[in-house]
């Protein structure tokens, strides 16, 4: 029981980092990056192949690049940085010229191409077979499952804490104000001298970095990863968590991550399956879809709407 709780909390923290990063892009700035999860995948792969050495013997054949055997914090950081670099590339070629739903299509397409390449090009990250036997952050220390979960919880919570402070600081700063202006009306923002494109680039990079670190944490926790883990569906789940939790509300992102991803996930364990194991996942997805639409219809700002953030000394929302 304790193990499940700790594991759920740890995963909740990791997911919260992703929703937060996604929110900085979409909620704060209005950039809908429909392939956000792909950047988590990039972070995961890089964290793995920089901390793994040559393929371990006797556990099946894996082929992958790098094999640097670096310590885990470095792997995490590199995961974040490479993801950020990929984000930079995407935004440099895409964001400047595209309206919001076009951008959604482009980002999805980019994500699909990346997925396709990783899935098929085996020498990169072992293709469709995925990576496994990724070293735990505790190295060769033998810990129980619970012990390891606690360690991961501490590490994830610390990372979440840092990124939470980052998101909050950004929101309440003049930079955050620029982001809101860009979100609401790019023409007005530019008419007052704001560098719209630069703001969009920064936000894309920061959000991608966070996704990369979260991905790194995830793979170091689970110890394995394969292309089925980052199908487009995953970004949609994050989006649901974002919207339901609260668009542009950094507290809402934490709530959304824990509520949608964790609670619904855990609750669905207790559903009867009627002999069909696939039913649980499907019902869960339907519930999330319905919840998303209901929120958009009746509480479009989310459970914790943006108006609840105290800006300029304002009191609680009207």
């Amino acid at each position, binding site marked *: 029981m304790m193990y499940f709780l700790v594991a759920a909390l740890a995963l909740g923290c990791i997911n919260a980092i992703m929703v937060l990063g996604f929110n900085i892009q979409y909620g704060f700035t209005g950039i809908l990056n429909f392939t956000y999860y792909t950047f988590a995948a990039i972070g995961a792969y890089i964290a793995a192949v920089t901390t793994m050495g040559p393929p371990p013997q006797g556990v099946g054949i894996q082929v992958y690049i790098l094999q640097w055997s670096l310590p885990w914090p470095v792997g995490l950081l590199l995961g974040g940085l490479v993801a950020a670099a990929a984000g930079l590339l995407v935004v440099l070629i895409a964001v400047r010229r595209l309206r919001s739903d076009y951008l959604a299509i482009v980002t999805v397409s980019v994500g699909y191409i990346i997925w396709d390449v990783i899935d098929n090009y085996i020498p990169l990250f072992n293709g469709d077979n995925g990576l496994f036997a990724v070293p735990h952050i505790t190295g060769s220390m033998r810990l129980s499952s619970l012990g390891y979960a606690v360690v991961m919880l501490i590490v994830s919570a610390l990372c979440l804490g840092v990124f939470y402070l980052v998101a909050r*600081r*950004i929101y309440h700063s003049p*930079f955050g*104000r620029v982001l809101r202006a860009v979100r609401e009306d790019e023409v007005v923002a*530019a008419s007052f001298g704001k560098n*719209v494109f630069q703001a969009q680039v920064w936000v894309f990079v920061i959000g991608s970095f966070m996704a990369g670190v979260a991905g790194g944490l995830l793979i170091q926790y689970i110890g394995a990863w394969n292309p089925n883990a980052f199908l487009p569906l995953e970004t949609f789940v994050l989006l649901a968590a974002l919207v339901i939790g609260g668009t542009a509300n950094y507290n809402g992102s934490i709530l959304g991550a824990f509520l949608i991803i964790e609670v619904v996930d855990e609750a669905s364990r207790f559903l009867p399956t009627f002999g069909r194991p696939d039913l649980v996942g499907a019902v869960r997805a339907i519930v999330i879809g319905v919840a998303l639409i209901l929120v958009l219809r009746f509480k479009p700002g989310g459970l914790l709407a943006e108006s609840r953030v105290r800006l300029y000394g*304002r009191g609680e929302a009207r």
Partner: protein
Amino acid sequence: MTTESILEIRDVHFAYGGVRAVDGCSFTVGRQASTGLIGPNGAGKSTLIEVVAGGLRPQSGQVLFEGEDIAGMGRMGIARRGIVRTFQLSRELLHLPVIENVMIAAQDQVGENPMTALFAAPRWRPQETDLLQRADELLAWVGLERLRYAPAGSLSGGQRRLLDIARALMARPKLLLLDEPTAGVYPALVQMIAERLKELPAMGVTLLMVAHNMGFVASVCDDVVVMAQGRMLTRGSLDEVRGNREVVQAYLGG
């Protein structure tokens, strides 16, 4: 009125889809002058403003601001040189509070850089406090201080025009381009807007405004430029221009 001109439009041409909206337009605007831009519908006034404001790139001609050619420079560059505009269809950031609409206009904000925002809070927090104070003063000056937290979208048309002005001033413009600042505003408010605008040249701001309300123009502007068919027809004081037969023709003939 000084002889120095802050803005010089030189033979500007702008056409789209075969329509020659601005067709060889040339005139100057003196520093700290208050100049009206009038003319019949379709004369190209708003298009010209849009060109000066950086939203449109002219096919030929120059727009000299303080001696520098800014034609085609883009909104951001032009704003940073001290030219601020209002929009014909009031463009506020509707979902954001009034105070934020004003704050966004301030220039040279140290905290707008993400690195500074994240790691150097002591450098921008004092500036933020100063800016908030100035923003509140401006809101009071236009009578909107009670609506500090109201989303801009909830303001009436007239209130939004006032917000436009407060916002524009927050940017400390050298040249303020106004596109129909009183459209859709009831008369008492028009007068208030006129009074506020009249204070501006003394504060160092040059005004160039497109307007159709002649009473308003008479009240605020030193002189007017009459545009017709994409170019300047004549200029002078409103009285001089009203008597000009060509001007009357232009308005009637359309």
